[in-house]
């Protein structure tokens, strides 16, 4: 069972970035560029989303030899449901959207 904790505006932004191409695997750098989050904010969010089953991840072979493999992310069904719930016009969500600007 997925715990229905309220998502932070930054977490919602990450889920929105992933939902823009929900079937595609996306790199951390792409999500950072789409959300404007720095690595120090983005990865703790990705870890939490992964632990809560809201996203799935997989390793891709490096494009250039000698480079490490890259980790990619995709939203799960639970992630889509959590995003839909976060986008519902409740007073808390309206306030959170306002805080994100």
């Amino acid at each position: 069972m997925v715990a229905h904790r309220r998502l932070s505006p930054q977490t919602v932004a990450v889920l929105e970035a992933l939902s823009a191409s929900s079937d595609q695997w996306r790199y951390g750098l792409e999500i950072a560029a789409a959300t404007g989050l720095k690595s120090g904010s983005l990865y703790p969010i990705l870890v939490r989303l992964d632990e809560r089953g809201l996203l799935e991840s997989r390793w891709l072979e490096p494009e250039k030899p000698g480079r490490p493999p890259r980790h990619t992310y995709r939203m799960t069904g639970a992630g889509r449901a959590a995003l839909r719930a976060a986008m519902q016009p409740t007073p808390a969500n309206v306030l959170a959207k306002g805080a994100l600007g």
Partner: protein
Amino acid sequence: MSLSRVFAHWLMGRAATVAPTNRAAWLQAMQGEFETLEAEGPALSWAAGCFTSALLWNIHADAVYLFALAFAVIVTPYLAYPLMPLVHLPDFFQSPLLFGGVLLAGALITALPCLALGVYRPDRAVLTAFVVILTDPDLESVFSKITPSLFRVKWGWLFILALFSLLVIPNLAAAGMGAFIGRAARARRQHST
């Protein structure tokens, strides 16, 4: 290689050593992205973020562990409190069954936090066991009340060794078992993902 790039690489290296073991894969993920960054400013900013995350994960992991350990050290003696009236029975020291039973029950109670913390932090299992052993009030009572009288008895040192083993072995065994369970659970989780 520029100074900025050297510093960024140094930060990534520090991040990898600072991060707790359960976040190693995430550090590799961050490293993978870092290696694709050509521009120096974004690379340094990315590395600084990785280092900060690793540091916070480390602090968080240790804070939870230390809090749990402190809780275990403080609360565990109270769990053994119901055994205390038995210690004051007149024939407590004369009855091997009663004496041994109470000691064994006390040892098992202090072994519980060692088991739980061993599962949570397999890398700290031995440390956990020794902290619990050394802060166990029974250790003090065994050495101050029981041991001096046993030293006057022939082969008394064997009893002292047995008492000490009862305090040490269950905790170390429980911590080791916890570490085994914790490592197996992590391996299973990694295998399934």
